[in-house]
Structure formats: C-alpha cells, structure tokens
C-alpha cells in the first residue's frame, strides 16, 4: 500500500546545493526565532522570506500537496479550539477591547482576538515552509553526517539514520502483520467494543514488537562485526564540504535570529501591540 510521505528529490538549485548541516542549523535557529517572537512585523517578514526561499527551491507542488491538507485541518481545528476555550484571550493580552459582533453567551468576536489568532497562525505558518524545505531538499544520507557535524554524538546521529533506513521495512511488516491478524478475525475498528479493541490491538502489536526486538539483535550483531562504535569519531561517506553559499546562509540566519530577537524584545514585550493609542 502506498502512503504518502515527504521525501527528498534530487534537484539542482541553490537550496539543494547547501549542505545538510547548514540547512539543519538554519531550520533550528529559524524555528527558535519563530517560537520566541510574537512580533507581527517580524513574523510577516519571515513568512515572506520563507516563501521566497521556497520558490527558489523549485520543489514540485505534488511533492507536498497532501501535507497542506493535514496542515489546513489542524489549523482550522486549532483556531476553533482557541476561540472556544478563550474567546477573549486577545483582550487580556493587549489590554484593550474592540468588539466586532456578539455571537452568544461569552462569545464575542473582538479585533484583539482576531489579531492574536492571526499571530498564532503566522507563527505556525512561518515554520512550515522551512520545515518542508529541509525535508524535501536534504538527502537523508546526509542527515546523520549533518547532525554529527553540528555537534551531535555520532552514535545518536547514526540512530537517526537507522530510523530512516528501517521505516519502510517496518511499515511493510506492520501491514503484513495487520493483514494476517484481520484474516483471523482480529478487529480493531469501531465494530468492536473498546476493551476488545484494546486487546486486539495488543495482539497485532505483539508480533511487531517481537520481530523488532529480533531485528535489533540482528542489526547490532552486524554492526558490531563491522566495527561500529569503536572509535571516538567516525567519518561519513556522504558528507559534503562547506562552500561559500553555506557560509552566506549561516551568516544570514544568525542575522535574522539576532534581528528578530532585538525587534521583539526592544519594547520589553514579546507581543507587538497595534491597539496602543
């Protein structure tokens, strides 16, 4: 069964040419900046910048179209939930109140709430293009090497590589196991009552876990025989050398992070307030 997942395509663009380590650092600093700031101006600039970079990468739309669907659903549900739980959150943050219209009970739509939720939306939106870019333009082979280069212990970096290596194999096992369980009548759908369903899930997971434990033993034996983990460092076949554009990209992200922090905290608050008279 084919299930869509985000995966790398080999293109030749300035973004693809950057090393994985650069893109990883860029993504981490970018995300941290986006998490810290609540300044609408900063977020808007960041969003425009990320969309611009995304365009340069020339990643084909059908590569990530399916994700946009998930993102949209999450987006709508999350914003409804915020409003339902706290319709006047914006009012309490910005300290003013401009009503637009009243719905019922405690639910009144205010400009402050709309602006607050716009900021949340922006914060979320700013990270998405960069996250997608990182995934779609970084060769998974380079991933572990990149993690190691930015300071992650090579053993842990390699475990990430192992995870990427075995995801398709485990997905195939999981499918086969659940097929054969279904054939024997083990049902995990709504047709069964909850306690039965839980027991049936355990019956499907058990063979998956046992074969995985076995797989772990086999792989560690093979890695042991091939000399993994003996040295204090290891080299990487797929590591790519830093070029000028990598240094430029890194300088750029440090600049962006610093600028966003300065602008955000300049007036002593994370929130940019348009409601001050």
């Amino acid at each position, binding site marked *: 069964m084919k*299930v869509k997942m*985000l*995966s790398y395509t080999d293109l030749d663009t300035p973004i693809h040419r950057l090393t994985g380590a650069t893109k990883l650092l860029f993504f981490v600093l970018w*995300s941290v900046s986006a*998490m810290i700031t*609540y300044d609408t101006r900063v977020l808007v600039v960041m969003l425009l910048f990320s969309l611009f970079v995304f365009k340069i990468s020339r990643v084909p739309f059908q590569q990530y179209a399916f*994700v*946009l669907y*998930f*993102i949209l659903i*999450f987006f709508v549900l999350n914003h409804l*939930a*915020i409003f339902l*739980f*706290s319709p006047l959150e914006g009012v309490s*943050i910005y300290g003013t109140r401009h009503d637009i219209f009243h719905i019922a009970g405690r639910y009144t739509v205010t400009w402050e709430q709309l602006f*607050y939720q716009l900021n*949340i939306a922006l*914060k*979320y939106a700013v*990270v*998405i293009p960069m*996250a*997608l870019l990182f*995934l779609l333009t970084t060769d998974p082979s380079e991933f572990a090497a990149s993690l190691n280069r930015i300071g992650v*212990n090579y053993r*842990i970096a*390699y*475990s*990430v590589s*192992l*995870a990427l*290596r*075995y*995801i398709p*194999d*485990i*997905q195939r096992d*999981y499918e086969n196991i659940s097929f054969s369980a279904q054939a024997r009548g083990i049902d995990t759908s709504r047709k069964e009552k*909850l306690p039965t*369903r*839980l*027991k049936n*899930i*355990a019956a499907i*997971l058990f063979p*998956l*876990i*046992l074969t*995985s*434990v076995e*797989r*772990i*033993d086999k*792989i*560690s034996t093979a*890695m042991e025989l091939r000399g*993994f*983990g003996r040295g204090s460092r290891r080299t990487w076949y797929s590591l790519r050398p830093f070029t000028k554009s990598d240094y430029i990209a890194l300088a750029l992200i440090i600049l962006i992070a610093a600028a966003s922090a300065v602008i955000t905290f300049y007036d002593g608050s*994370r929130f940019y307030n348009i409601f001050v008279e």
Partner: protein
Amino acid sequence: MAKGKILSIKTIVAIGIGSALFVILGRFGSIPTGIPNTNIETTYALLALFALLYGPTAGVLIGLIGHTLKDAIFYGSPWFSWVIASGIVGLVIGLIASRIAIHDGEFGKKEIIRFNIAQIAANAVAWFVVAPILDIAIYAEPANKVFTQGLIAGASNIVTVAVIGTLLAIAYSKTRTKKGSLTKQA
C-alpha cells in the same frame, strides 16, 4: 555486549528501530475511542515498552527522534512542545522502570505495579505539566485550552499504556522464560 557504556550498540540500534516504530505506529496505529478527538495512540505503548526494555537513554531519544520524524514526514512540521513531552515520557519510564529484569522473564504483580507507577508519573509530568506549559511559552496559546488538551491526551495515554503496554510487557516477559522445565504431554 558493552553493558557499561550508556550508548552500547544495542541501545543505538534500539533507538533507531524504536524511532521507526514510533513513526509507523504514530501514523497508522492511531485508533478511535469513540470519544470525539481522542484516539488510542498505540505508539505510546510502544514507547513505554522500549523504555522498559532498553532504558532511559533509549526512551528519551525514541520519544524525541520518533516524534520529530513522524511529524516531519507525515505532517510537514514538528510540533515541538509535544515532541519534548514524548521525550519526557520515555525518559521517566526508563528511569523508574528499567531496573525491572524483564529480559530474564521477570514481570509479575510487583513489576506490573512498578511499571504502571512509572508510566502514570511519566505521562502526568509530560502531558499535564510540560506540554501545556511549553504550548503557552512557545505558542502563547490560551492556558485553559492547552491544559484541557493535555489532560485528555495524558489520560488517554495512561489508559493506553496501562492496558496495551502492560499486556505487551507481560507477553514479552513470557517469551524470556527458562525452557528447561518443559516436558511433553501425551
């Protein structure tokens, strides 16, 4: 096996395979409970079991790596507050429960209680405290919303691990029992 080292080869491979399992179960092993917006996330039963089998280092890293990869590959962008919460679940269960000698087939009443205390503590810290506080700190979401979400997620994960996680651990321990005592019956 280099048992002394925190990062033995086996631990590293367990982190890799555990993370891959987390990704697959996180995407395909989510089963509706019938209560709106609440699913049985079987992946946390797996995380709890692997923390029990392979210890706190494996637990925390499977939580972090598995959750990041799952969000990234299938949903485009990781939701960091929950990623960190998953890491904490693995860490706390590993710290409290990994002294249980489950590899020698030991998982009786006492161990079941210990495992469940560990998982309840872990899920409570992660979902009732850490995840909501991070949601507020990072995303400035309304407090009552994130605490309610945390409460639902935590409670459902506690139940999931209590039932599925315990069943799996008992089953696993039975595969490790000594074989010497068996005799054929006519």
